[in-house]
């Protein structure tokens, strides 16, 4: 019996190795595992053996049966073309470039504007807007910049008529919002502004974000707290900043905020003109004169305001050295962001 099993084994092994078609597989299956197959018949004859031998031969016969099944199935897969060997046939070049889907880009200035706006929105500020063509009153007078004041020299204005101008900053939104709403207020106002100035660092049209907060008991310390929070959110936790006295007609006390130069980390370079510091925003406590224009009682309410140029922030963030690149709209530039 043992030798009979061995004989079948030898035959099956060689037949499976040389099998070429699915028909041959099915033939082998019938020949050995079918009702009258060699292995089936052998198993039937097991009953004639003594119990000891029956047990031993029975076990190895069943293992052998499974072995045949597995190998036939494997062969069948290969023949159907799904076997590893078959998939390895021919040549496929994975180094050809990928067929990329075209995704456009948001303009870097819009991107920075959104990022900055969102940081302030997380801090509870609400977005407000105002017209780009503005009355002199909102742009200057109500911000405590009377006609004939030297502070007007700080901002070169485009005029349409004597009283209608292109806004030189987003600060008029402060006045417009305070005229309409009563405090407390927490407002952020992004938008385009215009000044007659054009060179490597000045564009006649640029973007600003204005922010202000009015409530009872708002202090200069609060101004420092909020702006430091912003700077660390945007430029990183480890970026040093300083508040430096300055002058804006619509805030008092006024402060310029500098951050440690992002290029040289404070040691002094061309970008920061050797100071180690970069000016990034102007701020201050809202001047009581401004409150009087919008009929808020400065004894009851205090507040702070700040404004920053988006181009400057984008230039620092991305290391752009010429502001005009933002408005040339060269796609090779725009697609880098």
């Amino acid at each position, binding site marked *: 019996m043992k030798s009979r099993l061995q004989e079948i084994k030898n035959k099956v092994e060689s037949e499976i190795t040389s099998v070429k078609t699915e028909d041959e597989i099915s033939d082998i299956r019938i020949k050995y595992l079918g009702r009258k197959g060699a292995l089936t018949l052998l198993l039937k004859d097991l009953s004639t053996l003594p119990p000891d031998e029956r047990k031993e031969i029975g076990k190895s016969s069943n293992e052998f049966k499974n072995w045949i099944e597995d190998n036939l199935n494997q062969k069948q897969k290969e023949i159907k073309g799904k076997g590893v060997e078959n998939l390895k046939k021919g040549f496929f070049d994975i180094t050809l470039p990928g067929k990329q889907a075209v995704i456009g880009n948001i303009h870097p200035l819009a991107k920075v504007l959104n990022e900055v706006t969102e940081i302030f929105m997380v801090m509870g500020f609400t*977005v407000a*807007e105002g017209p780009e063509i503005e009355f002199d009153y909102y742009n200057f007078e109500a911000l405590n910049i009377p006609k004939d004041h030297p502070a007007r020299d700080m901002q070169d204005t485009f005029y349409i008529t004597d009283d209608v101008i292109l806004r030189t900053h987003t600060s008029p939104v402060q006045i417009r919002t305070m005229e309409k709403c009563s405090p407390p207020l*927490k407002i952020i106002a992004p938008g*385009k502004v215009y000044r007659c100035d054009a060179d490597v660092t000045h564009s006649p049209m640029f973007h600003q974000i204005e922010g202000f907060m009015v409530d009872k008991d708002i202090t*200069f310390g*609060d101004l420092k707290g909020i702006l430091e929070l912003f700077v660390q959110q945007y430029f990183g936790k480890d970026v040093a900043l300083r508040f*430096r006295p300055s002058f804006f007609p619509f805030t008092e006390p006024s402060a310029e905020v500098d951050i440690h130069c992002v290029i040289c980390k404070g040691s002094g370079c061309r970008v920061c003109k050797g100071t180690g510091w970069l000016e990034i925003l102007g701020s201050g406590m809202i001047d009581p004169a401004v409150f009087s224009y919008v009929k808020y009682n400065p004894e009851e309410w205090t507040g702070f305001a700040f404004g920053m140029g988006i181009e400057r922030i984008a230039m620092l963030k991305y290391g752009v050295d010429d502001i005009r690149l933002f408005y040339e709209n*060269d796609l090779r530039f725009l697609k880098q962001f």
Partner: protein
Amino acid sequence: MKITYNWLKEFVEFKHSPSELSKLLTMAGLETTPLLPPPLQGGGSEGVDGDHVIEVDLTPNRSDCHSVIGIAREVSALTGGKFKYPDISVKESDGDINSLISVAVESPQLCPRYTARIIRDVRVKPSPSWLEKKVIAVGLRPINNIVDITNYILWEMGQPLHAFDYDSIKGKKIIVRNAHRNESLTTLDEKKHNLSEDSLVIADSERAVALAGVMGGGNSGVTQATRDILLESAYFNPISIRRTSRRHGIFTDSSYRFERGVDNEGVVAALDRAANLMAELSEGKVVKGRIDCYPKKISYPQVDLRISRTNKILGISLSREQILNILNRLMFTIKIVDDDRIKVNVPSFRKDIEREIDLIEEVARLHGYEKILKTIPSSKVSVSASTMSQSFEKEIRNILTSLGLTEVINYSFTDEKYFDAINTPQDDPLRKIMKLRNPLSQNWSVMRTTLLPGIINTAVFNINRGIYDVGIFEIGKVFIPHKNLTTEGTETTENKNQLAVKSEVLPIERMMLGGAITEKSEKKIWEKGERDFYYLKGLVESFLGRLNIHDIEFFPINLSYIHPQKGACVKINKEDIGYLGELNPAVAEGFDLKEKLYVFELSLDKIITKAVTEKKYTHLPKYPSIYRDIAIVLDNHIKSEDVYKIIRETDNLILKEINLFDYYEGRQIPVGKKSLAYSLVYRTDERTLTEEDINPIHEKVIANLRDKLGAVLR
């Protein structure tokens, strides 16, 4: 303003090095340009004899610091170092100034104080080298001893002075008055100015001899031949000087200081110091006595300050003594009213201090901003929101970039010539524009009424640089003049006056969305595809679809800048929201554009009102759909829309979708015909459809197409 380190040391004691001083001033609000090591310094910056030049960038409020002594006072306040006022003693000789000159101020409002001295027998010659060096160090050109002294004192004390050639003063009379009508004056720089009656002049008995506070006249200036000097030191009204300076386009160190406000109490000191120095350096004599026309003494404000208010605004807790100490260092004198309140007398040089808040700022500045602790306000304002258009703009940017377009930003101003370039009819509303009065260039001279020229120019700019694959969009405003605001027209005087009338209304600002694609598509795909009108149309449909706007219709359009056939007006719910189409080839040629460009411009304001933001879930189909294709051949002038309508009208219950999947014109079908193939999707939510449900409807679709359009099955 430039000063030198050693010059400053003449008036205040301090131990800071030049770079420490620079930092000290910067952190007190007087921003200084840092001192670079000598090799990096530009010409002159290294100063003379080891001195250092410090450039101070002053804010407009600090008129008191436009002088060496002004900055010395500040350094004294910051360091506690002793401040020394310049020597103002005068060695007078004999004579009496009143017998040599008389002064009449006819416009005391414009000239609150006028003082003068006479120095006789001077010798006009080059200055001694110490004086020349100082003048050069701060960026001025040495002229002669007399002129150099006026500049030197102006720089040192902040008081502008003017030296007249005494012999040139007719009638020995000085009259400070408004200019006469038709009066003119040739200033020292040899330019002739026709004066306005608003301008203040210094005149003698016959003519104007100086444009007060701005520049002297050529008719009375100091020359080599001058023997006697009439030296003027005055306080002029800042606004009047500012207007005069602007009117005549003359900006001098003198006008700059006067328009910011000089120290009316320092007028005499500067006069005396300059007169004494002139006599000393020119071997002359100061005539006894001085003119001082100061009819109405200018009073200084007394400002109330509350300690509690100071601490409340700054978020600190300084004691009264600390605050008093700060104010004393700034040379303010103080009267204590009660525990909280003090009265502060402001010195005459601090024109910027008028209110309590001004004093609070001084306290903050001297205390040091860095010492104020940062806090986070606990606000009752809790809701953060963004405006409707803000949140939409963000969403729209995301949709358009996902559709492959890149955002561009063009200037809001443009050139009127582009209306000709896009062939806009003369009476087109687009031509109703707002002109800038003072544009930087013709290219940026009018406010745009359409985004199109900017979009085309951006495409051309890129194509000219070899980027043929352009897909761009822009979100920005256009500006439509209000009918009551007229800025157009000719440059006639009459028109100008009309413009000066206070405008009551602002223009209308409309938020627009514009864009363009070129025919060539992205090179990153090696199986190249081309874009056309339908690509653009699909883009706009996809975009609007993402905003849940579905009732979109396209109508033929007649626009000078759009291809007469390949263009469409876009309507949502019957409302016109813009156009799209191929740029008219004639217009393209005008822009030197050699590629086909497909453009669109839509009203974002209107789109926002049409967009549906509230989305509701629609349940998924419960039963399977059955797909049936249909291919027809019909006359090629029949519009696709008509075919669609006929299919649509055949059944509206189980026919869920009608999708065109093939379009063919060519050799396989007769000339003048086209083949359209649609995939029709049948489905109902009630049960699984059978052939029996669909066949009658499908037959009817075919019959209707045949009967109404003459279409035959292919």
